């Protein structure tokens, strides 16, 4: 194709179109305004209720003053969140493939997955700690549990989203189940898997932090940091930890969007 912006036949390369989109005020203005409104309300509340909410200035000072500590604690949380979400995605994808092929497996597994999804982590945490010890393992498993259900449902929906007419073409060629999965269903499910990743990966960071709070014997991670600072009424530090968590979530989401744009390049072409 080798064209720059316009290919001369009425189509535009999506990457370039999106690049110009990113520079437009209309792209950046809405989130900036929304953030501005939230920060303004925060500052007003903090000014009137200084024992409940620290001011933005205080949070900013605590954040910059302890950035090294926060990043070290954040690194520990990421070291639990990312393996957790990776395990969750791998198991969800394997199960979804099985469930797509077997109604029996769907009937067997789906209620279990729903039960796991609605089980309170607080109730599971002590048992997991007893089984897996005081290290990272129980937090990784708890993160995997928190992120598993949305990953499974989206993977299943993605595999079933393949064009039925294209499925007929594969059937007419006597394509094997593996060939149909590899060449049709998995590529067709990628938009669903990325949509789930946008939800699940940031959720994994929050999940890991919660796991650190509820699992006994935790000594590192942003969850531990936030809990300790809250207990000591150091609200500025606690909120600095929460903001660090949010920034991690935003950065991870942005990374997923970049990868998604590259992998699903075909989706960007519009006539």
């Amino acid at each position, binding site marked *: 194709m080798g064209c720059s912006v316009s290919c001369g036949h009425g189509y535009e390369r999506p990457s370039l179109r999106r690049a110009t989109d990113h520079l437009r005020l209309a792209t950046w203005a809405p989130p900036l305004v929304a953030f501005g409104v939230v920060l303004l309300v925060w500052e007003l509340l903090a000014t009137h209720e200084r024992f409940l909410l620290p001011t933005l200035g205080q949070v900013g000072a605590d954040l910059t003053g302890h950035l090294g500590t926060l990043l070290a604690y954040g690194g520990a949380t990421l070291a639990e969140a990312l393996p957790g979400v990776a395990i969750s995605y791998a198991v969800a994808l394997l199960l979804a493939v099985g469930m797509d092929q077997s109604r029996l497996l769907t009937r067997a597994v789906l209620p279990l997955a729903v039960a796991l999804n609605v089980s309170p982590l607080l109730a599971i945490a002590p048992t997991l700690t007893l089984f897996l010890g005081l290290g990272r393992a129980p937090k990784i498993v708890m993160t995997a549990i928190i992120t598993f259900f949305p990953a499974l449902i989206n993977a299943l929906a993605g595999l079933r989203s393949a064009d039925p007419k294209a499925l*007929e073409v594969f059937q*007419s060629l*006597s394509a094997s189940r593996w*060939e149909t999965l590899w060449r049709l269903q998995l590529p067709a499910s990628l938009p669903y898997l990325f949509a789930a990743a946008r939800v699940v990966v940031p959720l994994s960071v929050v999940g890991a932090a919660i796991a650190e709070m509820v699992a006994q014997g935790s000594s590192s991670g942003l969850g531990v940091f936030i809990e300790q600072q809250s207990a000591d009424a150091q609200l500025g530090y606690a909120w600095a930890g929460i903001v660090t968590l949010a920034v991690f979530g935003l950065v991870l989401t942005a990374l997923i969007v970049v990868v998604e744009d590259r992998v699903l390049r075909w989706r960007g072409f519009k006539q």
Partner: protein
Amino acid sequence: MAISTEPTGAEPPAGGEPYPRPTASRPAGPKPTAMPAVPEPAQAQDWIVLSGVTKRFPNVGTPALDEVDLAIPRGSFFTVIGPSGAGKSTLLRVLAGLAKPDAGEVFIFGEPPAEASRRKHLGWVPQSPALLPWRSVLDNVRLPLQVNRRAPCQPRDPERILALLGLGETLDRLPAQLSGGMRQRVAIARAFAFAPAVLLMDEPFGALDEMTREHVAHLLLELWQAERPTVVFVTHSVGEAVVLSDQVSVMGKGKLSEPVDIALPRPRPEGIEDTEAFHGLQRELRARLREAFAAPGD
């Protein structure tokens, strides 16, 4: 457009009748009668045969296929026209092995549809192009060569087929970058790429505008002339049926009429639609269609 390709089936005899004619009742001998007859086993290798095929769907009173008998010789272009819901697509799905009949037998050149499909003898062109949006045009056409590789086939050069269909400049484009007519041509190229003995085409031009339809139909005709697979084609368009076919049957309420011979010379040039012979055949088929619409039970 002169191209040289390898034959896929029985070549038509030289001179006289260019190739055997399909019949809704029996394959050879005198004029077809209302009572169908299955070809003799010795002839079965060269016929597509449906015998007493019935297909019902749950909670639908009228069967989609009602004891259909049909025999189509190798290398011919057979078209089924009829109103919506007449059972045309079901007939194709049964031939493709995508639906199992409740009663009756189906043989594609002597083998059941499942076996024909396993041996990659069937090319399926659905109503929508059903291209894989993440694959380039060329990779979409190569798809049949990449699946079910155990089945022997004589693959054609995908680039050559695309060029024949006027898509030589679009090899690296994605389906979303093509017009509807171009996408449908890619779907046709995909079906021809592995040189199947039988092409089953379910209203492939249904979503195209009139001008594009005519153009793509003539391109299909050129490709068919060169490759000569047996084609079973379903359409709503009487004109399209006349331009393309050797014989046309009208389907109504699950029943197939005696086929009408399309006695137009081949190759059929663009502009054949303006001849009196063409209009006469159109009138005859329209009369058959009116009968199908007014069949008992209406």
